[in-house]
């Protein structure tokens, strides 16, 4: 290949690009164009049936003066803070416990992953039956113990944690599987050497296991941050964003603004803010994990 002239090399490069063309067409049509279109819409006054006119940054100015939107930003961050660390830690803990060649471990791996395949409708239905203050599981247990049932989903401070618990139950399967895959890549020889050196379980975990799976840990955090920022179905079905807007996330705001109020431009502006938030959060996490690795 070294003998190719620059002109021939250029021709070959161009031919190679044809191999990625089908993917590129789909990528541009399904991702780049809608993204650019959304950005354009965010600078317009539009509904689903047409655009009335260009309004520049007016939608963004209105957004940052809208107390409901600002609350949805806080709610979304709060939800991410409640769920992502727990998903990572619990996912890792489950993976560590279930990372063995035993039948019971295989059964439990299946059980823990099973919730992930359920739809949000089923998951929220199940958990509403747990949280219902009148006849829910928790209320029955509380009454049996002589207590007063708590209206989790109607309480301003407890509603979001209740949604977070539902989400963790629903989403724990993916981090667990990712950690399991990573744990199975750690060379056995390292554990054997540690055993020969009489290393404690804690020391083995902190000196061998965790450093070996740190890339997966970063991956899980990035994936979960991206996923949980897009919270929608659970509050839509469990609380309708209430009580007192305490569980209204940005995506629900986007949906209500775009579809119920027919303000597509305004909804698109909120979507751009969400996009920026996810991008920044994922990039910061990526940058932090890469910097640690470089050391």
């Amino acid at each position, binding site marked *: 290949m070294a003998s190719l002239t620059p002109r021939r090399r250029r021709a070959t490069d161009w031919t190679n690009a044809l191999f990625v063309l089908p993917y590129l067409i789909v990528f541009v049509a399904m991702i780049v164009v809608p993204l650019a279109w959304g950005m354009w819409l965010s600078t317009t006054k539009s*509904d689903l049936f047409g655009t009335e006119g260009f309004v520049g940054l007016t939608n963004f100015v209105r957004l940052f003066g809208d107390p409901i939107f600002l609350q949805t930003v806080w709610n979304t961050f709060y939800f991410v803070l409640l769920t992502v660390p727990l998903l990572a830690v619990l996912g890792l803990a489950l993976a560590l416990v279930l990372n063995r060649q035993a039948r019971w471990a295989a059964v439990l791996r299946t059980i823990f992953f099973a919730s992930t395949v359920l739809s949000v409708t089923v998951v929220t239905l199940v958990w509403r039956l747990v949280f*219902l203050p*009148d006849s829910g599981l928790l209320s029955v247990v509380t009454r049996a113990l002589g207590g007063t049932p708590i209206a989790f989903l*109607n309480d301003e401070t407890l509603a979001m944690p209740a949604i977070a618990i539902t989400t963790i139950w629903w989403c724990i399967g993916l981090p667990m599987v990712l950690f399991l895959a990573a744990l199975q890549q750690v060379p056995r020889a390292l554990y054997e050497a540690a055993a020969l050196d009489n290393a404690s379980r804690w020391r083995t975990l902190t000196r061998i296991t965790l450093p070996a799976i740190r890339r997966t840990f970063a991956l899980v955090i990035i994936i979960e941050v991206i996923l949980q920022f897009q919270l929608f179905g659970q509050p839509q079905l469990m609380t309708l964003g209430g009580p007192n807007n305490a569980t209204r996330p940005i995506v629900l705001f986007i949906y209500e603004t775009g579809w*119920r*109020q027919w*303000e597509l431009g305004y909804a698109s502006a909120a979507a751009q803010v969400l996009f920026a938030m996810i991008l920044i959060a994922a990039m910061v996490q990526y940058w932090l994990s890469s910097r640690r690795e470089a050391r």
Partner: protein
Amino acid sequence: MRPLALLALALLVASCGGATHDDRTTLVVQRFFGACEAEYGRNTDVAAAEGECGIMTSIINRFEADNPDIRVVENIVFWPGYDQLTAQLAANDAPDLVTMHGSVIADYQARGLLDPVGGDLATVGITPDQFTDAARRAVTIDGKIWGLPLDSWTMLWHVNTNLFRKAGLMRNGQPVLPRSPEELLAQAEQFERRTGKPYLVQATANEYASYTRNFYTFVMQQGVPLFTDARHANFRTPAAHRALELFKQIRARDLTTQNQDYSAAVASFLNGGGGVFLVGTWMVQDFDTASRNPDSALHNGYAVFPYPQLFQRNVTFADGHNWVMPHNPERTLAEHEAVLRFLKFFAAHDADWARTGHMPAFAAVIDSPKWRALPHRAALAEIAHTATPLPKQIRRQFPIETVVGQEAAAAIAGNKSIDQALADMERRVNDILQHI
């Protein structure tokens, strides 16, 4: 393999060429009210059908049986179905007829997404003067008729008279209803003392619409306009404060069920969990049926009334269901004619539809002995005159209902002060109205 392949090919050819060509006119109707194909999928006996879904399905089946040249494609959507409809209209995939609340018609009409039907209806003998006031107002915009009204509905005072009797709130065999906020609170406390149960049953969890409907009704009863014009809400008023304060007091004094969602509230009332269930016309038939069941807590103990007049005016907030025709320039004359026949058929079956509990859209049905002979209808007949929808120029009533309900719920639950809730309510609603 070869015989199998030949057989498959033969089946394919047979399936393509063997089917008879259906030259009937296709009419696509899109509706909510649920799906009940298993029970009513083939039923054409409208009189034998029960409930919204059963009666709606049976009327459509009857129409298809009586009009063999029309094939009805029924698209059943999850309530209320407006997201789906909006997407269909944006994609130029409009059905021929759609069920739509009167409060929503103005949004679609203003964007040129509906066709007026007044002229067409007149050709088959249906004129607006035949509608009730509430039904006519629901479909009239700028002097034109934009749909065929199916009904009007309001919230009602569904009463467990067995518990009322125990509470000493029956006089001459009739429940004693309050005539002022003070009487309401006094009667509710008497009820709670004597029965140990809350006076009101309300769906307040994961539900905002009922908060809004109660708020609208009791502000309207004070004669104060909820909107000053098409772009401005008028919620920071003493009347609005009194309406929320009343429900806040009821909750604070434990005179209502709390934290029940819609299903739980219905179950609670059916099981004798409280005296008065605040829910709409659509439950009349179900509760009446329960009152005939000896095993039910409502056995021989159910009555229903319009909302009591607690303030100066006897009015109740109302909305209604209507058939509207989305704009479709490609609709053929035959399809248009099928639409018209369908609407005429439904108008003729208004009395059947009114068995659901909803108020008839035609004044003649309300005046008919047949309708008045239905259970409880004599007590409900006054709604024909007291039902009051929001002014037609107020658009986006659907999202506004949610905002008003959210803020009212926050005030009643004590999450924020009433004044703060009303200020937030007005600001949010004005924000929606001013960005239309």
